[in-house]
């Protein structure tokens, strides 16, 4: 009994939902049935949204737990940092809850969870710049990665380097000054060999996905359940 509840039921859920969602997409039959399918399909994705939302709340608790444990283990050295994280997390949630409350108590104010003024201030002045900064930090990393990656160790690396140089010169105005042919050559590389190179990878990724789907359907892929009993 317990094995049924612990292992089989979740797998049955997976099998049924995958088959249903394939059927909802591919089958039509007539307009009414198709309409019912797309309603059911929408409901399924809403289910996922609801579950993800709860998962995010569980995740929030996990973050609190992680930082509290860290403070307990590492003491004063870590405490200020962890407290900053916890403090901001709680503050954001409180502002969000205020926004939520206002959206019901005073709908005319036009304030919702994510448009609560203090919440927006934190978002715009803390989250947004940090987000943009981490994204653009990649420019440093791509520079140091190219310094190491384009070293000519073998013929293949030479090919790699030559391609990269053509694309680099084609992308910049200085390339046009050096030799006007870089731009058309770069366009050719991006449209012909580049497209061709990623095509088998795309096909392969698709095939891998289908086969993994098969393993899920036939209960051979169980890593997502964690513990093996």
């Amino acid at each position, binding site marked *: 009994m317990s094995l049924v509840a612990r292992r089989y039921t979740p797998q049955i859920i997976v099998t049924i939902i995958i088959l249903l969602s394939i059927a909802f997409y591919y089958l039509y039959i007539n307009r009414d049935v198709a309409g019912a399918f797309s309603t059911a399909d929408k409901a399924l994705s809403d289910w996922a949204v609801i579950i993800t939302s709860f998962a995010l709340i569980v995740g929030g608790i996990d973050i609190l737990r992680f930082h509290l444990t860290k403070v307990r283990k590492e003491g004063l050295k870590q405490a200020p940092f962890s407290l900053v994280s916890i403090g901001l997390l709680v503050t954001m949630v409180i502002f969000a809850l205020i926004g939520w409350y206002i959206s019901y108590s005073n709908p005319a104010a036009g304030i919702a969870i994510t448009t609560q003024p203090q919440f927006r201030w934190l978002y715009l002045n803390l989250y947004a710049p940090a987000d943009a900064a981490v994204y653009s930090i990649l420019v440093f990393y791509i520079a140091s990665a190219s310094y190491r990656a384009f070293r000519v160790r073998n013929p293949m690396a030479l090919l790699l380097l030559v391609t990269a140089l053509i694309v680099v010169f084609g992308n910049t105005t200085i390339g046009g000054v050096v030799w006007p042919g870089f731009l058309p050559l770069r366009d050719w590389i991006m449209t012909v060999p580049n497209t061709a190179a990623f095509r*088998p990878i795309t096909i392969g990724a698709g095939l891998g996905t289908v086969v993994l789907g098969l393993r899920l359907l036939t209960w051979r892929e169980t890593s997502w359940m964690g513990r093996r009993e």
Partner: protein
Amino acid sequence: MIGWDVIGAWLCAAMVVWIYSFVYRDNVFYKIAEHMFVGTAAGYSIALALDSLNRVLVSPAVRSPHTFWSASWHYVIPAILGVLMFTKYSKKYYWLARYAVAVNIAVGSGLALRTVPIANIVRQITATIVPLWGSDPVKTLNNWILVLITLGGLTYFIFTTFPKKAEGVKPSLTYLVYRGLYYIGIYGMMVGFGALFANTIMTRVGFLISVYLIYIQPQALASAIAAVLTAAAIILGILRKR
């Protein structure tokens, strides 16, 4: 008086500088910025979660309870499954969390299984069916390259069957074709990788320019102060390690 706008602008500039400082060395200001960022982001995602719960579940149930209970009553099931996710803290009932994970994994895999045969397989195959002859030599050559690299890449990925070369025997034609396509595939993919890598540099530099224009340039003083502070922290950190 210093308004919230000014504080906000200074905070923006400082956050950017502090986060950039990590590429030089880990330091106390990066650590602060990172923890601030993680805290805000975690709060933000919880807020987004509340927002979508509100949108899908709470708002329809409160605003028009009748339609909700007649048409969307089943939303209660994922809500229950969602609450069951908290059982992961229990030693005895931890497995109840799996039900919810099962639904999400299945929805995700189902989405993948419906789009993949079209987008990843059929469309790619039809795009590779191009004429290998014709009056335009440039176009024909391009088509040959396209087809050969695609077939080569597919050959490269074969996992379970491939012709083997027997010792001392002249290699068979199948073997030669296989090896040839294999090498065309791997070299072709390398060209693709090099091109994509180099092409990405441009968008990344473009993003750095945007960030500089938005956050650093308007607040040069704040960024300079933040930069000096970080530099001091890094140097202090190095000295202390010695």
